[in-house]
Every structure is written in C-alpha cells, then in structure tokens.
C-alpha cells in the first residue's frame, strides 16, 4: 500500500539494491505514526554511522539514508521541501505522477541533491531551474513536432481510465542510485 522512494548509494548488484529497498520498506512501514523519524542504521545501509530518516505522506514514504555529517532535522525539512517542490511542479502531486514521470522526479531531486550531497534548498530556485528545463524541452518539442502532439492526443484517452490517488498495489517506485547524503 505504500511506496518507498529510496535513495541508495550502493552500486553493488541490483539484487542488493532491491534487498535494501525491501528491508527499508519493511522497517519503515511497520513503525507507528508518532514514533521518531529516525532509524538506526543496520549493516545493510552501511553500518551505525548511517541513519534512515523518513517522512510519511498519505500512502508514500520518503526515505533518505544519511551519514552523520548531516543534521537529522535538516534532512526532515529537506524531505518537506522535496515534497512541496513536487507538489508545485506537478500541481497536486499524486503517486501516479511519480510513476509515470520517473525521469522528471529524478530531475527535481537532482536539483536538490547531487552525488549524495545537498545542492539547493531554496524551493523557488529549484522550481526556476525546472521551469527553465521545461522551456527548453518545449522549444525542442516544437522542432520535433509530431511525437509530442501525438502524446497530447493520447493523454486524454489513456490516463483518465486510471483514477487518481488509486491504491496501486505492490508496485514500488524506486529512484535508486541517487547516492546517499554524505
């Protein structure tokens, strides 16, 4: 019922990555609402220097794995900024946006976090960057022509079949390989 948006640094095998995501999800999802948002790191996430810091929004968990060089509360705020930014960029963001636009989500995150380090925390700055990218994209789409128009035709016949905010079963969105905060 919940999706895990996990960022993990391990460039080991895909198996390890999937395992980390599974276990993290398992750990986080069984926690009560009013417990703290920090989880001590197990071996899986690289030992006791690392912590899982997460926030829970409706059916979504946003989990960051950070080492001791980051402030815990600071990261909680960063997650909030991330979500607010998503909300601004997608207009009332929902899970489906995150699934169908993995690349965009990734772009937004990349404006905030780079190589595992906090790049920008100012939401307006982030949105400005994303806007600029979209403008570029638009102008290029104008050149490319047809494909984009085809998409907008499909938009209305394909997507509305799926109600927004649906319970989407066990599919998890993952954004792996965005390294941890260091």
């Amino acid at each position, binding site marked *: 019922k919940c999706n895990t948006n996990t960022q993990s640094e391990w460039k080991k095998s895909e198996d390890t990555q999937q395992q980390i995501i599974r276990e993290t999800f398992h750990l986080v999802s069984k926690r009560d609402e009013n*417990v703290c948002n920090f989880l001590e790191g197990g071996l899986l996430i690289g030992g006791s220097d690392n912590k899982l810091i997460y926030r829970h929004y409706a059916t979504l968990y946003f989990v960051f794995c950070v080492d001791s060089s980051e402030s815990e509360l600071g990261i909680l705020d960063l997650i909030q900024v991330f979500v607010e930014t998503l909300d601004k960029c997608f207009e009332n963001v929902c899970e489906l*946006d995150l699934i169908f636009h993995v690349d965009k989500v990734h772009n937004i995150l990349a404006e905030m976090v*780079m190589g595992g380090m906090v790049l920008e925390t100012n939401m307006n700055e982030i949105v400005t960057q994303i806007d600029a990218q979209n403008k570029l994209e638009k102008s290029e789409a104008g050149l490319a022509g047809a494909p984009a128009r085809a998409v907008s035709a499909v938009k209305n016949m394909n997507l509305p079949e799926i109600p927004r905010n649906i319970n989407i079963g066990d599919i998890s969105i993952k954004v792996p390989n965005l390294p941890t905060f260091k």
Partner: protein
Amino acid sequence: MPAVSKGDGMRGLAVFISDIRNCKSKEAEIKRINKELANIRSKFKGDKALDGYSKKKYVCKLLFIFLLGHDIDFGHMEAVNLLSSNRYTEKQIGYLFISVLVNSNSELIRLINNAIKNDLASRNPTFMGLALHCIANVGSREMAEAFAGEIPKILVAGDTMDSVKQSAALCLLRLYRTSPDLVPMGDWTSRVVHLLNDQHLGVVTAATSLITTLAQKNPEEFKTSVSLAVSRLSRIVTSASTDLQDYTYYFVPAPWLSVKLLRLLQCYPPPEDPAVRGRLTECLETILNKAQEPPKSKKVQHSNAKNAVLFEAISLIIHHDSEPNLLVRACNQLGQFLQHRETNLRYLALESMCTLASSEFSHEAVKTHIETVINALKTERDVSVRQRAVDLLYAMCDRSNAQQIVAEMLNYLETADYSIREEIVLKVAILAEKYAVDYTWYVDTILNLIRIAGDYVSEEVWYRVIQIVINRDDVQGYAAKTVFEVRALQAPACHENLVKVGGYILGEFGNLIAGDPRSSPLIQFNLLHSKFHLCSVPTRALLLSTYIKFVNLFPEIKTTIQDVLRSDSQLKNADVELQQRAVEYLRLSTIASTDILATVLEEMPPFPERESSILAKLKKKKGPGTVTDLEEIKKERSSDMNGSAEPALNATVVTTPSPTEDLLGLGPAPVTNSPPPPPTSDILLVDVFANPAAAVAPLAPGSDDNFASPDLASSEVVSEEPADTVHDADELFHKFVCKNNGVLFENQLLQIGLKSEFRQNLGRMFIFYGNKTSTQFLNFTPTVICSDDLQSSLNLQTKPVDPTVDGGAQVQQVVNIECVSDFMEAPILNIQFRYGGTFQNLSVKLPITLNKFFQPTEMSSQDFFQRWKQLSNPKQEVQNIFKAKHPMDAEITKAKIIGFGSALLEEVDPNPANFVGAGIIHTKTTQIGCLLRLEPNLQAQMYRLTLRTSKEAVSQRLCELLSEQF
C-alpha cells in the same frame, strides 16, 4: 501552469507503464518486460537509424525496467550517443541513464568522459550542470582521474554562473570523498574559502559543505575559514527573517546554511582571536535565546528548522567544551527537549546529552535529568528512543547514581527489545563492576543479570564475575551463599550460565557455607547434580571439575561423588572430553593421598588484573571511538575508588580464563600461578640503582647535533638495479626522535632535509629534496609507504612533486600527518628517479614516531606519584637498563627529554640526579597518559629508563625510542 506538464511525455513510455501496471501477476509482468526488451533490442540492432526522440524513448523504457528491479545489459551505447546530442532533453536522458546504470566498460567510459569534457567546456550552464551532476553521481576513480584537476578551475573562475559553481563545489566534494589522493590542493583552496562571502546563499552552502570536508583533513590550509564562517553565521543569526528572502524557510533564516557553518566550526578548536570568539559566543547565545522565544509559526516545519540550528549550535558548544556558561545553558535546553511532545526532539536531546555527559563542566548538570531519562526508558514507545536513553544512562553513570541506574537498567532488561538486550547486559556488567563499592552488590547484580537475561549474557560476563570473586576474599562467602539461594541455583528454571557460575564458585568456596545444615556438602552436590543432565557438554565438563574439587573440600561425600563418576553415563560417555574427565578424576580421587589432592585441587590463585574483557567486547560492538572517550573520562573520575578489582586501564588482549582449562591440568601442582606482585613505587624510589651520589657528568658539547655526515650512505645508494633496500640510517633516524628539523639523508646525488611541526594528533612535515648534481633528475617520484599495520594508525597525505628536479635545485613536498592510534613502525620514504641514464631507487625511514604526538603535562610531585601508582599494573610498565652511548651530561639529557615531547618535571624525584617527565600522547581515537623516569648511574655509565603508560604497546615503543637517545 504546473512546471511539469503531464502530457508532454512519450506516448510509448506511458503505454508501456500502463501495461505493466495492468499486469495481474508477476509472470505477466515479466512477460511484458521481456517482450519490450526484445522490441528495444531489435530497434537498436535494426538497419534504420533511430532518431533522437526514439532513442530517448527506448532508453527511458530501459530505465523504467531497471527501476523495477530487472537487469539491463544493453543500451549503454545508445545512451552514450544521446550525450553528444545538442538537444537538452536527449542529453538529459542520456546522462540520467549513465548515472543510474554505470558500466565499467572502459571503451564506454572513454566515450562518456569525452562527452563530459565537451559539455564542461561548452560554457552552456545547463550542459555544464548536467555533466557535473553525472560526475558527482558516478563518482568513480576514473572520473576523478579525468576531472579532479578541471573542476577546481571551474569552481573559482570569475565568470562561472552561480548554479554551476554550486554543482562544481559539490562535485569536487564527491570526488574528494571517493579519491582524496586525486584532488590536488593548490591556489584554488584560498579562493574557495572566500566563497563563504559569496552573494548567493546556495553557493555559500555548497562551498561550506566542501570546506568542512577538506578542513577535516587539511585544517591548516583552511583555517582562515573560521573567521569568515563566524561572520557569515552572525549575519544570518541576527538578520530579520525577511532579509534572506527565499532562503528563509518557515520564518527561519537560512537554516541549512546555519547548520553547515556550525558543522564547519566543529572542525576547529574555539577561535583564538578574542574578537572572533566573542562574536561566535554572541551567535550561540542568540541561537539559545531564540529557542525560548514564542514560535513565529505553529507549523512543524518552523520548529524543525529552528531546532536543527539549535542542536547544531549545542553540538558546537559541546565540541568546544570551554564555556561553562554555554554548556550549562545547552544542558538546560536539552533538558526541556527531553520532555517535549515531539518524539524526534526527545530522541535528539538524548543523543546530544550523551556527549554532554562527558564534559566535566556539565556532567553534574546532566545528572539532574536522571529521573526523566529513566522515565523515558520506561514509557517511550519507540525503540530508537529507548536505545538512546540506555546510552545516556550509561554515560551519566558515576559512583553517586550507579546503584539506581543499574537497578533501572535491570528492570528495563526484563522487557527490553531483543535487539538491544545484549548491549544492555554488557553495560550493566561494566557499570556494576566499575562502581562497585560493595562487592556483594556486584555479585547480586551479575547474578540478577544472568537470571533475567541469561541468553544474552556472553561468556565474558560470567568469566568476569568469577575472576572478581576469586580475587576478592571478602566476597567469596557471600557469593557462595548467593548462588546457592532460592532465586539462583534453586530456582526451577535456572539458566545454564548460572549453573556455570554456581558450579565454579561452589567448587572453590562451597566450604564457606557448608556449616549451614541447609547447604551441607551433600545438599550442594545434589543441587548441582540435579542440573547436570539438562546442561550442555561444556557445562557438564565444568561440573565434573566441581565434583573433584568437592572431593577435596568435603571428604565426607567422596564416595557419593565417586559413584557418580563411576556410573556408565560418565565413564562410557560418548563425548571424549567428559569421558576423559570422569576417568581421570575418578582415578585421582582413588589413588591420590589427601595431601596430594589438597595440592592439586587447591583454590585457584588470583587472576592477574587486566582490562575487563567485557569492556573490550562493548568496544568491539560499538566501535572504538564512542566507548574509549567515555572510558578515558570515567577513568579519571573513578580511578581512586575501585581498588584492585578495577583494572580497565590497558587494552591488552585478554585471554579469557577458562575455568575448566585451569582445573584440568592434572599436574601435581597448581597450574596457574599469579604473577609476582608488581613492585610498589616505594621500592622503586629507594632502589639501590638510584645512586644517590649526584655527580656532575663530564660535558660533551655538541654531541647531539653534529650528525650530518655527508657520505654516510653514498656508497650503497647509487645502483643500477631498483633494489628495494631500506636505508636504515638508524643513527640519523634516531636523531630525529628528539628534534624536528635537520638533514635526514645525503649522498653524492641527493640531500633530503626535513622540517616538521606537530600539534596534538596532527602534524605536518616538509621534505626538501636537493639535487646536488648539475644534471636534471627525471621521473623524480618520492612515495611515502606505510605498512598495512601502520596504515590503520597513521594517516599520511602527500602531494605529488614535480617529476623534474633541475641540477642544483631543491623541491619541497608536504606530508600531512594524522595519528589515529598508537603505532610502532616508521613509514618508509621511497624515492625513485633517473639520473644520467641510470635508475635510482632508495628508501629511508621517515622519522614520524609516536612521541611526536606528545603534549607535555606539568604536575606536582604528589600528582606524579599518585598517577605513577595508578599505573602499577606490570603490563603498563616497561623498563630498560642500558649502557650510556653518549657522555652523561645532565643538561643535554634534559634537553633531550624535552625534545622527546614530555614535560620535564623538576623537583619531583627525591633524588635530584634522576629525571622524570610526563605527557599525554594524542591520537585521534584516544589519549594516553605517559610517565617516565630516567635514572643515571654515573659510576657504571648506565641508565635505567622506566616508562609507565596506560597502554602496554605505548610504554614499549616509547621506551625503545627514548633508550636510543642517551
């Protein structure tokens, strides 16, 4: 208009994702994915050239498939092609794919690096940003090799856009983290420091992250950042919440930057400049004051951001540990948080208080919160928080509250989460031992521990209780009585560990309670034997040993015991160990006379004192850093109260005393003998060796410093073959033990000079290579080599030098040194170069020795001898008696002891001819107090040198080093 318009995606991709989502089963999903993979593969392999849009679409699909957890083994080439596209969208997808699915194929990496290089040079900020992101996300060594030189230039160039600067700073940070050796320090460092003054707060934040990490390794290079960081912080803290516009987050001005700046300041000691220091104190006070103001918003984001800054400020206050006033305020603030309704704040408060507890200024203040913390242990619903509470109780424990804390921990143990039980057991065992005033309390505590959490009690814990009971006469009777009690051995479900302790103790001291008819020998025996069949083989073996001890203690039940030993279940036991014991014990009890029995089965001799094996275990569990610091401090506080049963001083490896092993040695005499008692300091002080005739030594001026014999090694060095002999040049090496500057090596070609400085656990050495010839040296490569052992205890960082050294020229190399833990060997400096047509290869020992990290300590005579006595464990002392190699001149000797690094303590030794010194060796992980005493004997032309430190290896090494000096 939302920033991401939802329709503009790729149709094929949207359809594919919908398909996947509509799959009813895992099999259907895999089938759909395989179909898609086959489709993409054929498209990629097809004859028709794909346009950028199609490539982008397929790469996007691959990415999605990968994110679902499937392997992707193709498509990399297509992604790389997208990198060189001029369209932003295509380039961007290409970079995304490369970042997520890195591939180590070297041909690909070459292409990728090429594309990145082009984008970095494009002066198009968007493309530069993409390229920098890719480098940072991949962060591989190859990338570092290719770009570590380029990025600093981009970072400090005047015309670089702010957003690119930001990315460049973090990209460099990432490369420095993965491959610090590949990031060259240089002119750019000072310009990076000035980024702290940048207009753009995003740039300042990124730069602060970078500087913080760089400064940890190169504190000198970045120390100007302190005053800049303080003034920046002060501007933020005192700004109105609207001044910083976008960087104000829920009414808190630039919280992330504030946190980063406070982190940066934690790399340095308190600023020395009083003006800067004053300003910083003001900032910290303002932050503490703001915490008391009513919130500007009810939103949790507001309090979160505010508290993030507050916690970081408190960390800095604790790190500086110098302003009692601030420390106490910090403690009070944390105290408020302990009761806050936000779980996160309670968690963080407990965590911060743990470090606060070890400061002498605030230890008492922390203790006042004991009730709250105990309450947290009882009522918190979150195991993360309870774990922190346990840690804090452990940290705040001292003699005054030990009984209460241990009792509470024991209480908690009954219901504790399984995941933290073992750690709590260790902590209880350590506290109980450390603060035991009354050893009956200690025995009770440990037995309770075994009763409550037997499964989590490791071997070390019950070994330790036996060691202590054996070593302390006054508690033996009580221990025997207690193990025998209803709550212990007589309990129906008594834990096997309790049987072990009970068996061992009754075997040794059962006689002490045998007078009571309720615990007569036979009752003791029957009680133990009733557990026998429920126990594992090692416990049974131990019980058999107890039985044979009973034969000696209680001759009246000898026949009962012999019957048991003789029974088939023992004599024909399938286990060889048990069978052998039964046979041998039976035989022994039959043929040996009472006298022989009494000798063989005598009470165990005391165990030599050593570090608690439990403490060693906890250290291993928690990592060395955390526990050691605490221990060092605790040690100071408690050193007077624990008597002989509180070793916890040296870190030698503990051989666990296996009771069975000692008993089994059926030799005619007791197997283990206690080591001879360590000589007391009184004996030492009036020792005959300390010749009271205080004669004046003949003066030999200059014997110390005229070392540079230019042709010392010249004949051996020049060789055609790259021979790897280390030029021991021991004599020169030893000269450097007591001094920091001079010539380390010289032959006909090359002279190596050294200049070095050390402070606490850090140091810096300048190596000067002088070309004595008139011909160039080519491929000149000096390398500092540390053995594997050494690498873990000594961090050395060097910068490469110019490979060409002109005739008559001198080049300089800097070595930054960090001592992580104590070490024995010296690093090797290997130098290779071509001179004329020949290859030269030589190695010398680099005189980085443990004593360089000495800080002298002045102390009074009384303090000195008190500490001397505390270090009376035989392993802590190393002594060397040796013949004087130089004329015995008191003034020169004094100069050498000071040069060695310790303080020279005058008028401490009753014999004025002797020299005593004291100091602390600073390593990153710990600090080791060292005392030394040098007693010259002029008549015999000999010295006796005694070193006492809290660590055997350190005593040993310092003694070796110093012995060579006289």
